[in-house]
């Protein structure tokens, strides 16, 4: 029973990974890519780790899995934000943008 739930959760996590990879292929600019990768790395990897834990459930594995889930949710998001900030500072272009208040404010502060 535990293994079946684990298999379902692993497939869900793999689908999140596929979403991230498809977004990398299809979406236009660096910021949409970072958004997809942050989700795939955070949520997808956490789901896969929980599924792996359910396949082989022991107390020591559960402790390590809790550590992985906490660390991964925090570090994946923080890493994505750092990459997005660096991409902006390196002048990566925004494509098909409909509104951009960061550029407005940065221009106002420079002036």
């Amino acid at each position, binding site marked *: 029973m535990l*293994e*079946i739930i*684990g*298999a*379902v959760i*692993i*497939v869900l*996590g*793999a*689908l999140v*990974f*596929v979403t*991230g*990879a*498809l977004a*990398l*292929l299809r979406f236009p600019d*660096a910021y949409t*890519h*970072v958004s997809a*990768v942050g989700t*795939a*790395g955070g949520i*997808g*990897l956490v789901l*896969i*780790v929980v*599924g*792996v*834990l359910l*396949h*082989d459930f022991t107390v020591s*594995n559960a402790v*390590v*899995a809790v*550590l*992985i889930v906490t*660390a*991964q949710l925090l*570090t*994946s998001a*923080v*890493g*994505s934000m*750092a*990459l997005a*900030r*660096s*991409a902006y*500072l*390196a002048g*990566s*272009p925004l494509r098909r943008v409909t509104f951009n208040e960061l550029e407005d404010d940065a221009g106002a502060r420079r002036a």
Partner: protein
Amino acid sequence: MIGVVIGIVLVGLAGVSTVYRMVTGPTDAERAIAGDMLMFCVIAMLALFGVLLDTPSALEIVLIAALLAFLSTIALARALTRGRR
């Protein structure tokens, strides 16, 4: 076990398309982001093969790899801006 095999296939496909984006990505930023995604794919593969091959300490390896992925992401972000903050 069939769920683990499906997961390995899907994550493998995600890794292959990530490598394609890494080769063709028009700017440095997109290559760095693809590199980050590739690291996550490798970590997911480690966890899944740990179940498939019945490795005793797969989750510990995943923990170390996840922390290393954060360091590599920060290093890539720093390299993108050429060391400026």
